């Protein structure tokens, strides 16, 4: 036992005579020598020995307690082993490649195979190169025999495929492609259309290179006809009858083996140019994933930097990038859902493995989105960013001053000269220590440099005094040190006091604001409730409408693309002032990298605050479809339009799409549980996004063109910033709802939806406040 050895080292006492032996082996030897004659079953002795041994152990521990830890577990003796989980990485294990050997043998086989196939195709072409319908059977037979030598009947007494004996009832049939013999049961037919299809490639090739080989080989023909005549003379009767009953007008008979080869060939031809839908969609899906892999780290880098208050990146650029990345997530989601539902409506249903594949692709996409999206950190709001920048600046300044002090100190100590005790209060004090005639020292201050950076005069003072203090100390002016220290204390106290009162004032102001908000909230909640009731009536038909619209979109493969284009067309003229609004729609097929990410966002933000009635409609793709916002009751979107108008009339600037979408989603979420509703994709993608961006719209006054962002900091608007945060949160929560729904955690969905609603309420509240 491993632990034993070390235990024994504690003393190597013989258990029977308590003699101390130096090593384990000596002990063993000793035991064998001295005590081998003792009682074989030592248990009796053991009991009494335990007492003695305990005493011995105590003694032992007292004696050399310092070099022997008491724990006794052997782990405390040995260090430096490595946990197998931490073993250093290793190279790939041994491998052996057989491909060369494999290829060598395959090549021989392939040559053979290709020749065989080509032979069949050429024969097939000859067999189909004449008009079978209008030539009598005998002639056909003659031509057929000229193509390939028929095996002699007498050579084949049994069907080579099934083993049945040939006789009058079970007659012989010849394969027209290879000439072999089989029975009727084992016979196959190549229909003419298939034959034409198979030979089309060869025919074309031939018509180009000249049609020399189209005429049957004459030499072979003679041979064949000779054989045929012999056969005819043997069983002319049967031949005649067979000709009568089996005139092959539209098909060519052949054996199993030739048929098999032909079918393989046909399959290959079919597959060559056929790219299934799933592959097309999948390729786009991968493209999006690659984009995310490429962009997300960039964004995270930006967000980290911004959150740390650095100014390396622009907040708006990062916001744009965030939008872009999120757009890709939505695309991934939409594409994978499309893959999931491929062929679901077709009859017969796709093979179960196909469905499984689709499910797995979808699942992977979900995992991908979950993993990457949930790790997407949020950006600081503009306001907060300013704070962060400020904080960082201060920190840097502090560090800078400190560094400077240190370097000053070093300089001083290098000079190491006694200095005069004049109080260097002069703000114009020279930056480098100056030597006076008296040979004294003059503490210098950094004020010249620092005053621009530290606004607080008190802080400046403190800083100065600290630097003087250090210099004085270095010069060993003890009296001055004491005085300066006193000075410093006073200043610091004063500063602290100032700060405290400032903080109190600030918190009071905050409290006031909060109570104000609370009131607002109350009022808004009331209004909201009223509105919700109102909306409830229009809800059901609304979602119904969405359904049909999506259905029509779904019919075309590139339906979403369609929608996008339409949207662009419509939007452009209206928002001429800003051509960028073209990008208001999620670009399903968007792959052009040149368009800077921020354009997307711009598009959403473009709505001028003034003309709500018209402009809000320009954001809604549904209305664009019939381009007249006339309230036509037959229009499936009537309800929505109406609602929107109502809201506009209410003087409400923003139509919040989430409420409505929520309802729809929830319904569909349930449907999806059962069948996987294909329309959900559309809903989220086409309906949700434009609105979401629209809701990114900021109130009037604060035009939110991100390009102008910098200038606007002059008049910061707290609510605008709050909105940004809210929108981010809404995005996040939506992602969670989506995820929870997917995994069937309905309770969570509810909880999250509750959160979402709350957030939305807050959002609206904010909006109305700014109004």
């Amino acid at each position, binding site marked *: *036992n*491993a*632990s*034993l050895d070390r*235990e024994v080292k504690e003393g190597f006492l013989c*258990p029977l005579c308590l003699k101390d032996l130096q090593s384990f082996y000596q*002990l063993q030897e000793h*035991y*064998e020598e001295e005590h081998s004659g003792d009682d*074989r*079953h*030592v248990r009796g002795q*053991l009991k009494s020995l*335990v007492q003695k041994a305990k005493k011995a152990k105590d003694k032992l521990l007292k004696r050399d307690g310092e070099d022997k830890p008491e724990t006794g577990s052997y*782990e405390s003796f040995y*260090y*430096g*082993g490595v*946990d*197998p*989980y931490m*073993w250093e*990485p*290793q190279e*790939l*294990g*041994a*491998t*052996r*490649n*057989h*491909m060369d*050997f*494999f290829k*060598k*043998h*395959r090549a021989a*086989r*392939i040559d053979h195979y290709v020749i065989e196939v080509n032979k069949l195709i050429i024969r097939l072409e000859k067999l189909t190169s004449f008009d079978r319908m209008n030539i009598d059977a005998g002639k056909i037979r003659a031509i057929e025999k000229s193509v390939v030598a028929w095996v002699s009947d007498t050579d084949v007494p049994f069907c080579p495929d099934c083993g049945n004996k040939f006789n009058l009832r079970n007659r012989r049939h010849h394969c027209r492609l290879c000439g072999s013999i089989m029975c009727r049961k084992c016979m196959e037919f190549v229909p003419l259309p298939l034959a034409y299809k198979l030979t089309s490639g060869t025919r074309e090739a031939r018509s180009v290179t000249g049609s020399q080989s189209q005429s049957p080989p004459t030499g072979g023909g003679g041979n064949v006809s000779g054989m045929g005549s012999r056969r005819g003379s043997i069983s002319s009767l049967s031949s005649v009858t067979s000709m009568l009953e089996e005139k092959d007008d539209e098909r060519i008979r052949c054996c199993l083996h030739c048929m098999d080869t032909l079918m393989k060939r046909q399959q290959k031809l079919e597959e060559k140019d056929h790219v299934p839908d799933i*592959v097309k969609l*999948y390729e786009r899906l*991968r493209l999006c994933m690659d984009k995310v892999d490429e962009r997300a780290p960039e964004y995270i880098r930006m967000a980290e930097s911004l959150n740390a208050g650095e100014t390396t990146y622009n907040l708006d650029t990062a916001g744009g990038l965030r939008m872009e990345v999120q757009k890709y997530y939505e695309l991934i989601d939409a594409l994978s859902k499309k893959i999931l539902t491929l062929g679901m409506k077709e009859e017969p249903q796709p093979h*179960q*493995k*196909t469905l*499984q*594949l689709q499910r797995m*692709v979808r699942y*992977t996409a979900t*995992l991908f989105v979950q993993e990457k999206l*949930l*790790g997407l950190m949020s950006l600081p709001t503009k306001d907060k960013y300013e704070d962060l920048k400020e904080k960082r600046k201060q920190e840097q300044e502090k560090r800078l001053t400190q560094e400077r002090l240190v370097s000053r100190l070093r300089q001083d100590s290098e000079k190491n000269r006694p200095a005069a005790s004049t109080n260097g209060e002069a703000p114009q004090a020279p930056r480098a220590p100056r030597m006076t005639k008296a040979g004294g020292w003059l503490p210098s201050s950094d004020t010249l440099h620092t005053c621009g950076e530290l606004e607080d005069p008190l802080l400046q003072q403190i800083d100065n005094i600290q630097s003087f203090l250090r210099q004085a100390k270095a010069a060993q002016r003890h009296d001055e040190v004491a005085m300066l220290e006193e000075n410093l204390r006073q200043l610091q106290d004063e500063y602290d006091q100032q700060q405290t009162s400032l903080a109190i004032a600030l918190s009071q102001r905050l409290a006031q604001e909060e109570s104000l908000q609370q009131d607002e909230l109350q009022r808004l909640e009331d209004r909201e409730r009223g509105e919700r009731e109102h909306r409830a009536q229009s809800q059901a038909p609304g979602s119904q409408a969405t359904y049909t619209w999506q259905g029509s979109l779904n019919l075309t493969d590139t339906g979403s693309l369609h929608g996008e284009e339409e949207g662009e067309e419509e939007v452009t003229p209206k928002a001429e002032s800003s051509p960028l609004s073209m990008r208001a729609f999620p670009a399903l097929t968007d792959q052009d990298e040149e368009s800077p990410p921020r354009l997307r966002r711009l598009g959403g933000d473009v709505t001028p605050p003034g003309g709500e009635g018209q402009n809000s409609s320009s954001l809604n793709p549904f209305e664009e479809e019939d381009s007249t916002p006339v309230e036509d009751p037959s229009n499936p979107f009537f309800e929505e339009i109406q609602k929107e108008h109502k809201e506009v009339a209410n003087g409400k600037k923003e139509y919040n799409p989430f409420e409505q979408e929520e309802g729809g989603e929830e319904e569909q979420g349930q449907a999806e549980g059962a069948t996987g509703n294909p329309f959900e994709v559309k809903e989220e993608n086409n309906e949700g996004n434009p609105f979401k961006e629209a809701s990114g719209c900021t109130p009037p006054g604060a035009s939110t063109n991100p390009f102008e962002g910098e200038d606007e900091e002059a008049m910061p608007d707290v609510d605008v910033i709050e909105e940004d*945060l809210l929108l981010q949160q809404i995005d*996040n*929560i939506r992602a*969670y709802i989506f*995820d929870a729904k997917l995994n069937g955690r309905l*309770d969570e969905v509810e909880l999250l939806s509750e*959160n979402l609603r*709350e957030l939305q309420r807050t959002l609206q509240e904010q909006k109305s406040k700014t109004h």
Partner: protein
Amino acid sequence: MNVTLAVKQYISKMIENSGPGMKVLLMDKETTSIVSVVYTQSEILQKEVYLFERIDSQSRDNMKHLKAICFLRPTKENVENLIQELRRPKYSVYFIYFSNVISKSEIKALAEADEQEVVAEVQEFYGDFIAVNPHLFSLNLSGVARGRSWEPTLLPRTTQGLTSVLLALKKCPMIRYQLSSDMAKRLGESVKQIITKEYELFDFRKTEVPPLLLIMDRSDDAITPLLNQWTYQAMVHELLGLNNNRIDLSRVPGISKELKEVVLSAENDEFYANNLYLNFGEIGTNIKNLMEDFQKKKPKEQQKLESISDMKAFVDNYPQFKKMSGTVSKHVTVVGELSRLVSERHLMEVSEVEQELACQNDHSSASQNVRRLLQNPRVSELDAVRLVMLYALRYERHSSSILPSLMEELNRKGVSERHRRMVTSMVEYGGKRVRGSDLINPQDAVAITKQFFKGLKGVENVYTQHAPLLQETLDQLIKGRLKDSQFPYLGPSSLRDRPQDIIVFVIGGATYEEALAVYNLNRTMPGVRIVLGGTTIHNTKSFLEEVTLTAGAGQAERVQRAGGHPNRR
């Protein structure tokens, strides 16, 4: 030396070789286990492998837009199935990897079947073993012995498994084997033969101290697999059964659907990785902490998220919470079930007596305790039998053995004839006559001093006193004190220095208790790396099966088994 990593690297290399696009992984029954132990589904999905198919499955459809990665054992059936597959390919390209050495003639047969030129790769990737933990592998073979010699079909199979481990780790070792076991010698020779035959494959960069392969036989220590276990991994295997790192919980009363089968993989489950080797008491505490942590993070239904900062905190915590909830429910269920079984079967009491039997030397107290437990109706049949077996092994030649009366007791308890016969089989399997080492020997000075100082230590934990024989053997091996007379070298040369890289293989199956011992040796011995392997990994139940198959009682079953695997290579 990390076996898990070795297999993982092989598989990711296969996938990498096949390039981008949707893929299907074609496997056989055994390679499916090999892959599933090291990779989770979601991990492998991220590598664009969306379908997992069996080569012998009839329900596969033509999917020409998929690439096929075939990872197969080089068996006759697999080659035959593959030939059929290549004649009518269902996928666009085939990347073929055999988990072991394949013959030229079989490659030729495959090449001739590939008329449509769909094969892009034919390689040998030696992942022919189940990598349970980084330092532990299994071959999932049971019933390897027939009497005291190899079951004929399983010697080549075991050799393949063991050589593939060597190839995957790139080790060309010196071999030591347990002299008392003919099977160990045969396996050693068989491995050596492969190394000689495939000398090109085994031509690795020479290390200063050559690696060492130590081959042992389970029959030398039949006690370890008979003991109840109290560390997490071992306990789960003993009471619930770990099969390729999966537990079947479907028999647990009131189990929810998604927990019917759970995966315990240290690779992906942090809690499990941290608690794998902790004892039951410690796990209890940790699970409580985990729960509390979880409760803190769990959003309460009634808890209103009042401020934006609340919401932000909620959202920030959400992913973590989600991930946690899976882990929590899994481990709470598993630990809950373990403690239910512990109290239902009185396992604390049983285990105490087991440990006394295994580690102490007081016959009268032990026999009293065994008798007392046999009379307790709550003690299960399995536990009763294992106590008697331990007694029989421990006091096999004791002058006042009460074995006959204990057998009578078993009979009275209503223990089945089959189980009672197993006691005799066990003694035949692992009794004194066959043992090469001093597993238990009252006259042995080591045993006595060991016993003695255990007493001094005051035994922190009564239930984990026992240390497997393997631990001592390895300790001696590392110190260069393992006797050549007990573990001779195969061939003329022997190791001069202390060994550094050691692969221990136990014919007849290793146990998780031994895995823990090896783990601890790895952690505490500087400059030494040890990998443990076995034909399988036993708990008491599977060990009893193994012994039954080995002994005469398993004759009929063995014939049937052999018939079931006619083409095992």
